[in-house]
C-alpha cells in the first residue's frame, strides 16, 4: 500500500471506532434517565410507603400521616369502567382484523386504530367531557372511564390481532375439517390458544390507562373524600400525584413520590410480564 492509501485506511478505521463509540454513548445517554428517574422515585417514595399509605384516607392540611386509599380505589374503579368500554371493542375488533380483516376495510381499521393511538390523551379527555360531562351536568367517574376506555382501544385491538395471528392456520384447518363452524373454531380453538397473549396485551393497555392523568383532569376531576359512585367525581392515583406535587407541603410531596413509585412499579411489572409472554414470538 502506498502512504496515501494507508492514510485513508487508517482514517476509515478511526472513523469506524469513533462512530461505534458515539452510537454506544447514545444508548447510554438514553438509558441513563430511565435509571435516574426510577431510582430517584424509589429513594424519595419508599419512605412514605407503609400500611397506612394504602389503607388510610388523605389527612387535612397540617396533620401528618394519612394515605391514598380513596385514590387507589378510584383508579381501580376508573380502570374497571374503562375496561367495560375498551375491552369488548378492542378484543372484538382485534378478532375481526385477524380473522376477517384482510380487505380494504380491515386496512382502514388498522390505520385508524394507529392514528387513534397517536391522538393526545388530553384531547380524548375533551371528547369525554363533551360526550358525558355536559349531558350529565357533572364531572363523574363515568366520564373518566369513557376517556380511559377510548385510550385503551388501540393497544388492545392491535395486540389482540397480533396474538391471534400467531395461532397457526393448521389449528383452524383442524377445526374446520371436523365440520365445526368457523365462529366456533375461533371461539373454542383459536381464542383459547391465544388467550395468554391477549390477556397480557389487555393488561398492557390497562396499565397504560392507569398511568394517564390528562384525560382525568376534567372528567373524573378528583375527590379528597371517599367515593365509589360512578356519577360523582372520583379520586385517582395520577391526579393525586399532580395535586400533591403542586402543594407546598413537604409530606404531601413525599406522598406524591410514593404514589409515583407504586404506579411505576406496577407498570414496569406489567411490561416485563408482557415481554416474557411474547418473547421470541413477537416484536
Amino acid at each position, binding site marked *: 500500500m502506498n502512504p496515501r492509501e494507508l492514510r485513508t485506511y487508517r482514517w476509515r478505521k478511526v472513523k469506524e471506532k469513533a462512530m461505534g463509540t458515539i452510537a454506544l454513548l447514545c444508548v447510554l445517554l438514553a438509558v441513563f434517565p430511565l435509571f435516574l*428517574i426510577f431510582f430517584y*422515585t424509589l429513594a424519595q417514595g419508599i419512605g412514605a410507603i407503609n400500611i397506612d399509605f394504602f389503607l388510610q384516607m388523605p389527612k387535612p392540611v397540617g396533620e401528618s400521616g394519612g394515605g391514598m386509599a380513596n385514590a387507589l380505589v378510584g383508579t381501580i374503579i376508573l380502570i374497571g369502567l374503562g375496561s367495560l368500554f375498551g375491552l369488548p371493542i378492542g378484543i372484538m375488533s382485534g378478532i375481526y382484523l385477524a380473522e376477517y380483516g384482510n380487505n380494504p376495510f*380491515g386496512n382502514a381499521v388498522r390505520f385508524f386504530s394507529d392514528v387513534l393511538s397517536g*391522538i393526545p390523551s*388530553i384531547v380524548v379527555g375533551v371528547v369525554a367531557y363533551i360526550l358525558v360531562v355536559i349531558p350529565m351536568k357533572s364531572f363523574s367517574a363515568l366520564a373518566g372511564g369513557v376517556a380511559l376506555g377510548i385510550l385503551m382501544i388501540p393497544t388492545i385491538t392491535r395486540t389482540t390481532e397480533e396474538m391471534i395471528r400467531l395461532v397457526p392456520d393448521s389449528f383452524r384447518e383442524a377445526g374446520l375439517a371436523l365440520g365445526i363452524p368457523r365462529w366456533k373454531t*375461533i371461539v373454542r380453538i383459536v381464542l383459547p390458544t391465544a388467550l395468554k397473549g391477549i390477556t397480557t396485551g389487555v393488561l398492557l393497555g390497562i396499565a397504560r390507562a392507569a398511568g394517564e*392523568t390528562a384525560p382525568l383532569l376534567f372528567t373524573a376531576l378528583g375527590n379528597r373524600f371517599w367515593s365509589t359512585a360512578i356519577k360523582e367525581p372520583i379520586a385517582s392515583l395520577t391526579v393525586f400525584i399532580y395535586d400533591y406535587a403542586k402543594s407546598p407541603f413537604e409530606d404531601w410531596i413525599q406522598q406524591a413520590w410514593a404514589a409515583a413509585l407504586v404506579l*411505576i412499579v406496577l407498570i414496569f411489572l406489567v411490561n416485563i410480564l408482557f415481554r416474557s409472554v411474547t418473547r421470541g414470538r413477537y416484536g
Partner: protein
Amino acid sequence: MSHLDTIPAEVAAGGGSASGPPLLSPPVRVRVRTRNLGDIVFRNLTFLFALVVFSLVFIMAYEMYLGSRETIQKFGFSFLTRSVWDPVRDEFGALPFIYGTVLSSMIALVLAVPLSLGIALFLSEMAPRWIERPLSFLVELLAAIPSIVYGLWGIFVLVPWLRMQVEPVLSRSLGFLPFFRGAPYGFGMLAAGLILTIMILPIITSISRDVLKSIPDSYREASLALGGTRWETAWIILTSGRSGILGAALLGLGRAVGETMAVTMVIGNRADISASLFDPGYSMASVLANEFAEAIGSMHQSALIEIALLLFAVTVTLNALARVIVWSVTRRFART
C-alpha cells in the same frame, strides 16, 4: 394468514404459494360461502366493533367541531394569529400556546432525532443479539413511564438542575444568542424541550430500528463485500431507510405536540412569546389541562375546545402521514 373463506385457487390446488410460480394461472379466487347462521352473526358482530374503532376518529372530530363552533365563527383564522387570551372579556387568540407547543416540540425533535438514530444504528447494525434485546427493552420502558412521573421528576430534579447549573453556564458562554438570554428560572421552554426529548426518544428509536431492520441483508453484504467498514455499511443502511426515518421523526413530533402533564408541570405556564429558551411559556395541551375544568362561560369553553380540535387535527395529520411513509418503506423492502 387465516382467510379461509377466500382461498386462492392455486393454494387450494396444492400449488406454489408466494415463494414459487403458481401452478394454475391466472389465479382464480374461489369464494366458499358460509351458510351457517352462527358464522354470519359472529362475523357481523366483530365487524360492528371494528366499525366503532373506525368511526371513533370521525366522531371525535365532529363533536369537537360542534363544541367549538362559537369561537370558530367569531374569530375565524385570527384565532391562530392573535395573542390575546382574556376569558373575562371573551377575547381569544391561541398564538402564544401554538408558539410554545411548536418551540418545545422543535427543541425535542432536534435533540431526539440524532440520539435516536445513534441508538437505532447501534441496536440494529452493531450490537450482538444478546445485548440488543435487553437494551431495546430498556429504551421501550422509557415510553412506559407515565407522563405525570416525568413531570414530578421534572419539577424536583430537572428544573433545579437547569436553574443552578445549566442555564447560568449557557448564558455565560452562549449569551450572545437571543435563545440563551434572561434570568435562569429553571421552569421554561428549555425544561419542557428536554423532558419531551426523553419522552419521544423511545418511539423514534423503535420505529427507526424497525425500518433499518426491514432493509434486506443484501445491502449489507454488498457494502461489506466491497470492503466497507461496519460504520460505512451502517451509513448506507441509514441512507436507504431515510424516508422511514422521516416517518419515525413525524411520529415523535406528534407525541411531543400532544404531551400534556410533564410539559404543564415544567413549562412555567405563562402566555408570553419570547425567543429565550429560559423564559416560561405555555403550550396548547397545558392550557387545556389548566383551564378546562374551570372554564368560565361558553366562549371560554369553546375556545379551549377549538385548541383541542387544533391539537387533534395536527396529531392526526402527523400520524397519518408518518404511518403511510413507514408502511410504504417497510413494505417496499419486504417485497425485494
